[in-house]
């Protein structure tokens, strides 16, 4: 299977679109748009999982896709939108560092992922290796998002991107046991619930979602 064949092309397009959304997440300042981008990435992930299920003839991947759609595409974004509206109506924008530098860093990370994965996977199927390269790129971009954004919400967004990349990698490996996809999906839910819990706590105490406010408390209390 290679370039020009339908299973390969569709998987490639879906993975590439997820990667593009990762770049959007890197620079988007408006919180509402950030949450929408997360939702879009969740939906793309669901489509990618379902497509892999169809190509590999693995019905359990349909379940993975459905879980991704329900949780990452719908439930979590709706919850985040609602929380933003009710808890912080006056907060629509959150700072990002220099956009140019972020983008440059992102491009370098994608190049790094390709350089690392492609030579290492010459034995594997073409679809699996390119999927893995895209997945690693998304994971690394998620890390970069977490580093460049200082707010608790930005870190949660980075973590979600990272998890999306992981699931994309997992569904791309034919015969990967279901237990992992299911648990990943379940755990992301738990993670977000707890993150929301923390965010609320932080807000109650500091009236802000900015973790920078916490730094005076770190270390040894001097």
């Amino acid at each position, binding site marked *: 299977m290679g370039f020009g064949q339908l299973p390969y092309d569709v998987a490639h397009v879906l993975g590439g679109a997820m990667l593009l959304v990762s770049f959007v997440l890197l620079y988007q300042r408006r919180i509402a748009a950030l949450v929408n981008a997360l939702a879009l990435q969740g939906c793309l992930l669901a489509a990618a999982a379902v497509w892999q299920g169809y190509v590999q003839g693995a019905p359990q991947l349909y379940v993975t896709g459905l879980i991704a759609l329900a949780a990452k595409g719908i439930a979590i974004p709706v919850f985040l939108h609602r929380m933003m509206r009710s808890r912080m109506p006056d907060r629509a924008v959150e700072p990002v560092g220099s956009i140019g530098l972020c983008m440059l860093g992102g491009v370098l990370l994608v190049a790094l992922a390709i350089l690392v994965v492609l030579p*290492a996977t010459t034995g594997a199927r073409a679809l699996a290796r390119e999927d893995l390269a895209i997945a690693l790129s998304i994971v690394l971009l998620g890390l970069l998002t977490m580093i460049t954004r200082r707010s608790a919400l930005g870190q949660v967004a980075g973590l979600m991107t*990272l998890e999306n990349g992981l699931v994309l990698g997992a569904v791309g490996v034919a015969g990967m046991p279901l237990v992992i996809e299911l648990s990943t999906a379940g*755990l992301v839910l738990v*993670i977000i619930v*707890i993150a929301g819990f*923390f965010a609320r706590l*932080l807000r109650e105490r500091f009236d802000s979602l900015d973790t920078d406010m*916490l730094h005076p408390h770190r270390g040894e209390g001097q």
Partner: protein
Amino acid sequence: MSLAALIVLLPLLAALLLAALPGQAVRLNIAASAGSLALALLLLAEGPGGAGLLRPDALNQPLVLIASLVGLGTAIFSAQDVAHENFDRRRMRWFHAAFQGFMATHFLALLSDNLGIMWVAIEAGTLACVLMVALHRTSAALEAAWKFFILCSVGIALALFGIIVLALAAQPLLGHGEQLSFAALRLAAQGADPALLNLAFVFLLVGFGTKAGLVPLHSWLPDAHAEGPTPIAAVLSGLLLNAAMLGILRSKAVVGANAEVIPPGGFLIALGLASLLLAGFSLWRRRDAKRLFGWSSIEHMGIATIAFGIGGVPGHMAGLLHLWGHSLVKSAAFFAIGRAARIKGGQTMDAIGGLVGTHPMLGWGLAMAMAALAGLPPFSLFASELLLATEAGRERPWLLPLLILGLLVAGTALLHNMQRLCFGAPTPEPAPMRAGIATLLPLWTNLVLAALLALALPAPLAAMLLDAARALS
């Protein structure tokens, strides 16, 4: 139902009960922990074997026993300690349920014979710990919990990527139904693509290494130990780090089965040495007593990692013995320092002093625990460090001076702090308070057991140590 499954289910059931029932949390917690210990002893008597998702073997059985021992000690200690926390009823229930939930996930992580399930268990255990670290709801506790949560989530996510790559490497060689079991993975790794295995190991090491508190991924560890309730610090250091280390060991055994990979030992030695040296020097600058012991955990994980990196039967024996001894001694140290902080009304170094003069049993217990952590005889950490140094001298002579430098710097720092905390003029106490049997019993039991590990290692445990080391190398 197999004994191994019972060990996982008992604390899980207890966690559900504790979450549901309004009263009797303390007694139920102790009873469940005692039940776990009894089951762990039975499991040890039954010996390795069993099939399916849970497979007790020579590597994890002693760790299960130590986990249940530390769990019971912590349950007894926390019976007295949480009374001072001013928790309301809901948070009291939450605390105990999360504790038993953590124990269940820990037993699952140790016993599971499937890399995927082990990963899920370690992640779930982390979430339980995050909740417990945040319980104080002070801003420092919140920052500690947030840092712990974010860093460990990233770490564990990277470990999952490693598992995916490992599955990709092993997938063409695996039969159906035995996916991701360690034995099957080891067999498959022999014929798998070495480049993919290298990639997988790097991610697994970074992922589980974050959880094990290895430098440079350690920064969550001192905060989480200092800001959460003391019983949590005891199980974080005594148990969670062991589960993460077991993940690294299992990954190393799988990847190392292939002759063409970059030898994993070198990575382990580098991370371990960095942890030992950084922690050794950091121990000199601590002003918070619980943070001091957090840093000492980083140091000891570093020592064990170096031992596993050197490898061979003696190296693995030294590393495993070090993990066992560290769990016992470090939890003892946390019991003592936790109680001392209650008595003196603060956990800074300046607040606690002259403990031996006012509370001899507690003071000497803390002094013994710190001497053991510094690597003095007759405790098992001395034996494992000696074995490690001998093996390092034989296998990697260049490593020996660095290793000894790290051990000396860290050991003298601990002894220096021991003198400040235990001897000298007693610091004032807000209200006179006794040490209490609930602290002294687990404290001295753990110390005696740690000494026994060195002086008179029971024959079945010794046989398991040898078997486990042979299986790993």
